[in-house]
């Protein structure tokens, strides 16, 4: 029997780790005081990817369902915020919640009919769905067709308006930490164990009384919801969005992040997301080789190290 518990809470391992984590969090929170704008921007993008990767990890890492259209959910969140804020002058924080809810709803709509099928069908359907969302955004009036939506207003809390890069850095950092906390708790919950059980052996899980379709659907909806949140924040950070930000390559990058770090293991997922953003920045001269190298990396990783760069300390799952 494979060991099912893969995301052991870090705190249980050593008393030093919480201290180190706290120290690390402080360093991250203080980043605007010592980093320049470029570093801060890259860090914000990396945190954004951390949120997306953590959300996708629920679907791919925990429940073992391949989702190749994850950028569709982050598009739903981004467009929801953009449309509601520019056309209906709604408050950002309200649209943030609506964006997450609509993304979750989109997850249910796409998941409900297909989750009964085999998992590889799901991969293609999610891919098709990602394209449907992108093309729809490209064709509709309300989404600004190919030029997208621009002039999205800045959010504010109380009287404090988000005007600087570091405001968005902090917001993204907060979202990333909250997501990490939530996804970690979810992974260790009864529901999380059900996901991993389904991933390991669907029939056995069903025989144990786990409602296969319902549990998968929840994974799908929750994963989509985090994508929606990230997209919503992304929209106000960029203040402009266009359909091409949500193409298939985005979905692949997010998938790559979680495969790189280690499917289902949160420290690995976070590491992978950071690597996927920072590596291309470090090797700017290789920019056009990026996707070729990423493709090779995917194949090589799967053949030689399917558990990822930072697998769990305990026994291997697969």
């Amino acid at each position, binding site marked *: 029997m494979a060991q099912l518990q893969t995301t052991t809470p870090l705190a249980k391992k050593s008393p030093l780790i919480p201290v180190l984590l706290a120290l690390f969090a402080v360093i991250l929170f203080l980043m605007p005081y010592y980093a320049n704008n470029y570093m801060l921007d890259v860090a914000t993008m990396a945190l954004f990817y951390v949120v997306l990767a953590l959300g996708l990890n629920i679907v791919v890492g925990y429940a073992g369902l*391949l989702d*190749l259209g994850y950028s569709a959910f982050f598009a739903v969140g981004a467009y929801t915020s953009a449309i509601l804020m520019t056309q209906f002058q709604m408050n950002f924080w309200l649209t943030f919640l609506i964006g997450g809810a609509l993304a979750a709803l989109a997850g249910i709509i796409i998941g409900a009919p297909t989750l009964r099928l085999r998992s*590889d069908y799901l991969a*293609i359907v999610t891919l098709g769905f990602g394209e449907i969302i992108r093309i729809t955004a490209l064709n509709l009036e309300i989404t600004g067709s190919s030029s997208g939506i621009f002039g999205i207003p800045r959010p504010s809390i109380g009287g404090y308006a988000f005007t600087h890069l570091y405001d968005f850095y902090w917001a993204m950092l907060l979202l990333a930490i909250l997501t990490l906390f939530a996804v970690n708790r979810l992974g260790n919950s009864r529901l999380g164990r059900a996901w991993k059980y389904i991933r390991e052996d669907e029939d056995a899980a069903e025989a144990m009384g786990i409602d296969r379709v319902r549990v998968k659907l929840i994974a799908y909806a929750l994963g989509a919801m985090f994508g929606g949140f990230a997209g919503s924040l992304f929209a106000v950070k960029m203040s402009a969005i266009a359909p091409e930000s949500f193409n298939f390559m985005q979905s692949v990058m997010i998938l790559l992040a979680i495969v790189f770090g280690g499917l289902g293991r949160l420290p690995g997922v976070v590491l992978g997301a950071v690597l996927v953003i920072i590596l291309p920045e470090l090797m700017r001269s290789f920019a056009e080789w990026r996707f070729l190298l990423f493709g090779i990396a995917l194949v090589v990783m799967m053949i030689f190290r399917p558990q990822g760069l930072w697998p769990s300390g305990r026994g291997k799952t697969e």
Partner: protein
Amino acid sequence: MEMFTQQMINALIIGSFYALIALGYSMVYGIIKLLNFAHGDLYMVGAFVGFAVLSLFGGGTGLLGVVVAFFAALLFGGLLGIGIERVAYRPLLSSPRLTILITAVGVSLVLENGVMKSFGPSFKVYPVQLPTEGFQIFGATLTYAQILIILLSVLLMTALHLFVTRSLYGKAMRAISIDHAATSLMGIPVTRIISLTFFIGSSLAAASGMMAGMYYGQISFMMGFIVGLKAFTAAVIGGIGSIPGAMLGGLVLGLLESFGTVWLGSEWKDVFAFSILILILVLKPTGLLGENVTERM
């Protein structure tokens, strides 16, 4: 009527391309239950091999050049398919399904970006254009080149069908798709038959890519992405794993898409096709001629 006939002709051509690619999806799926995500990119590679060979011949390419380019695409595509199976899929055949699917995505990225690095990211104009002579039929124009494409597709599909149903190799393929281990115990070289399957499927996709390149006149490294998705849709419509199903599915999708485009406008063409995919999966996941696919592994 004129419009209807013209759309029928378009549908037949597009349907033939889809069907040829869908065959590869279906064969590989039938034999090792792998959704070869990179399959659409072999169509693209075929188009580029044809492009490279025709460019080598220079401006005065005659029929000979086209024939050579066609067979070069066929052969290269097939060998590439074998190589991909050997390097990327064979080591993972016993791994979890998710692992091999992710690998297939990686292979697809490598093919697309490898071609982009070698030929450049812009659209390439095919060095040879198909002659536009033809004749009128019910007010629509049917060119000889279109007839040739349809005939060639039908020929390839018939040959494949005969091969799979009549030859010893075809029998071995069908046996493997039913039971891997038992086939191996009967002394059938399973890995070699799998290689052969990849060769045939990939070369059909490459041949279709070469024909599409000539037909549409321009190619790009991303051309396989959407077409691959649609060919998969065709395979699902017909019933994945079934060879006549893949042909039928290609034609049905070609028809639906041609008339759907008239009805909804070309900007919604892809949305229409993918919606059909989702609808079919919901309503009749076995497809028109398929075996039972909902059975779990």
